[in-house]
């Protein structure tokens, strides 16, 4: 498990779709994802995260998107409605709750469409029963999760706790740091999730408000290029369209049976979903240029983070550098599959590992502690929650305190 494979310079076969090179009704050319990102000229644009989601979906050849309002994803979901009205998508409507929306998305995916939706915080938890069902049914739906706090008390502020709930759903879970990541992950996420040997849902997560509601410069490929469409007949399971022969699935439904065959079927199926998550590595590594990014990981002090905590850490490292403290950085891009071997390798020589996070439990630190030797090296934090910001000065202070260095007192 988690063997290191050198894939950095290998191009994945993203699409052999028969429509490659043809034009769609919006006069966009169906283009291989590698060409969209690595051959086409990119133009810098200054956009909010919500607008970035819209720009990605314009180039994603999505069949169906189902929307429901919840802060902070409402704007993105409504913007997708606008591009549906322009003709970019085949189907779009408002569902009645996140539980229903995720069911409507499943219906569309069972029927053979590429499906995209967005949710956040309480919506993610309302929808939760659907996520393992999507994975178990091998539906490569993409949900963009714009993380916010989970009630109660009522909160709409940024907080990544909901990602912890997603980790064992059998979905791919990627964590975008910036608007650029968000754009790239959405388009690349479809391609990875739809590979026949993967073919499971994907949650592309970003930190609500910090990414969705701030403006950032994003390099965009031309609008006349779009991903090759989803080919439902590359699905490892039959599409529910009565275009393949119907078959009797089993002599007795397994739900009725308390016997070895029944248990073995369920056990192997659950393992297969986890294996599919692992198999996504070989497609993800070349497309995302690795599951992690690393900077000066030969240093004794490391920060390991995901999402906007990475951005704050970059600035903290610059400040520490001014005081003569040299700190390396590891950015985790995919939480599922978890970059186990990569983390083990880059933390091999580290004496102190700090894991700044935007949630109360410090789940990323737990994940890291569970896979590396001598895990007392991991300092769980600093982590903030409930919508608190994580100023880079706090990261600096925590590192200095932990190392026994003198520090300006930040707290009153």
């Amino acid at each position: 498990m988690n063997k290191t494979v050198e894939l950095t310079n290998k191009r994945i076969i993203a699409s052999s779709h028969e429509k490659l090179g043809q034009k769609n009704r919006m006069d966009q050319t169906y283009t291989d994802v590698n060409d969209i990102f690595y051959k086409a000229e990119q133009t810098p644009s200054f956009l909010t995260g919500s607008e970035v989601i819209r720009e990605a979906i314009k180039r994603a050849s999505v069949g169906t998107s189902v929307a429901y309002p919840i802060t902070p994803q409402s704007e993105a979901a409504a913007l997708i409605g606008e591009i549906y009205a322009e003709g970019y998508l085949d189907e779009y409507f408002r569902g009645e709750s996140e539980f229903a929306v995720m069911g409507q998305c499943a219906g569309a995916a069972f029927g053979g469409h590429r499906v995209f939706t967005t949710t956040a915080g309480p919506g993610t938890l309302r929808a939760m029963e659907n996520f393992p069902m999507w994975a178990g049914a091998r539906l490569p739906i993409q949900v963009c999760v714009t993380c916010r706090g989970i009630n109660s008390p009522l909160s709409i502020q940024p907080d990544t706790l909901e990602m912890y709930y997603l980790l064992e759903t059998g979905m791919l879970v990627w964590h975008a740091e910036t608007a650029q990541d968000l754009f790239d992950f959405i388009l690349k996420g479809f391609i990875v999730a739809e590979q026949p040997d993967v073919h499971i849902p994907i949650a592309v997560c970003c930190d609500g408000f910090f990414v969705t509601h701030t403006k950032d410069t994003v390099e965009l490929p031309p609008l006349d290029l779009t991903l090759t469409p989803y080919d439902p007949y590359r699905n490892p399971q039959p599409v529910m369209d009565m275009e393949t022969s119907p078959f009797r699935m089993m002599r007795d439904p397994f739900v009725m049976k308390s016997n070895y065959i029944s248990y073995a079927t369920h056990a192997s199926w659950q393992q297969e979903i986890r294996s599919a998550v692992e198999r996504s590595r070989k497609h993800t590594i070349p497309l995302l240029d690795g599951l992690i990014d690393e900077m000066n990981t030969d240093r004794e002090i490391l920060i390991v983070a995901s999402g906007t905590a990475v951005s704050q850490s970059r600035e903290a490292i610059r400040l520490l550098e001014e005081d003569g403290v040299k700190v390396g950085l590891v950015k985790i891009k995919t939480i599922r599959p978890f970059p186990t071997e990569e983390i083990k390798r880059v933390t091999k020589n580290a004496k102190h590992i700090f894991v700044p996070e935007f949630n109360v439990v410090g789940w990323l630190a737990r994940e890291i502690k569970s896979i590396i030797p001598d895990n007392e090296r991991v300092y769980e934090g600093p982590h903030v929650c409930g919508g608190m910001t994580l100023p880079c000065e706090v990261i600096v202070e925590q590192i200095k305190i932990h190392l026994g260095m003198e520090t300006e007192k930040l707290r009153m």
Partner: protein
Amino acid sequence: MSKEKIQICEDLADIMPPEYQELVATATFGKQDRGWKDIGSSKELIEQHSLCAGCPESIAFRYILASLPNPEDTVFVGSTGCTSLVFPHVAVHNIHSLFGNQNAIASGLKRTLASRFPDVEKDVVVLAGDGATVDIGLDMTMQSWFRLEKFTTICFDNELYANTGGQESGLMQKGFVAKMAPKGKNFEKVRLAEIAREAGCAYVAVLTVSKPNRVEQVIKNAIYVAREIGPTFVQLYTPCILEIGKQSMEGLDEMKDSETIGGRFVQKEYITEEAQKLLDSIKEETKARKKAAKEAKKTVNA
């Protein structure tokens, strides 16, 4: 899908299971005017079932599958419950995902099939129990009707949660003593047919499954109206003989009793004007077609 798609490759014919061989040889995929009378003379689309002996739900399943106007292009959406024990044996595509979300699944599915196959009529039929339709799933059932989603919802109403052992449901009669209603259910049976009518269904029917010709007609009506006009709803009384203390041979009598005058399941239909017009025109067409076929036969014989 056409009947050609279920053909078996010659080299593999001998290893295919006999029930599939029969399906290829004598099933009624593609047959015009298929109906309940094909039962016995052709391969049914339901292979077996693991329901209780004498369960009226099993005969309801057989009538419905025999009555689908176009099974080669029909997809079922089920839900958790006794019906989910039958679907794995059925020769049409079917989806079981969760408990209560069947009309949400069907909404996404129907729209996608309509978008992917603009020139083919793909029928989507929801078939779920009363717990799934009225209790846990009522929100999604009704919202799909509000949105005028073009598919048929069939509710197998056995007036309780059968698969979990006979608990109270919203469609249970008032006063019935059941698990989770130890002093008797204290509110009336939910008037689902009226709710369906008010929520936007163009065709609504309530009946038992005691008479196959009635079931056939209602199912066909519901599917034809869903294709052209909007949502349709069929509520079928399929009593759970086990949980109401009856013997396996008493299901038919129970249904007949409940459909006599004053009973809970006297057959009723709510049909919009538009739907009635459509059904009348289909009736005329069928009549004319059958008459022409008869004439042609006479001419040949003469």
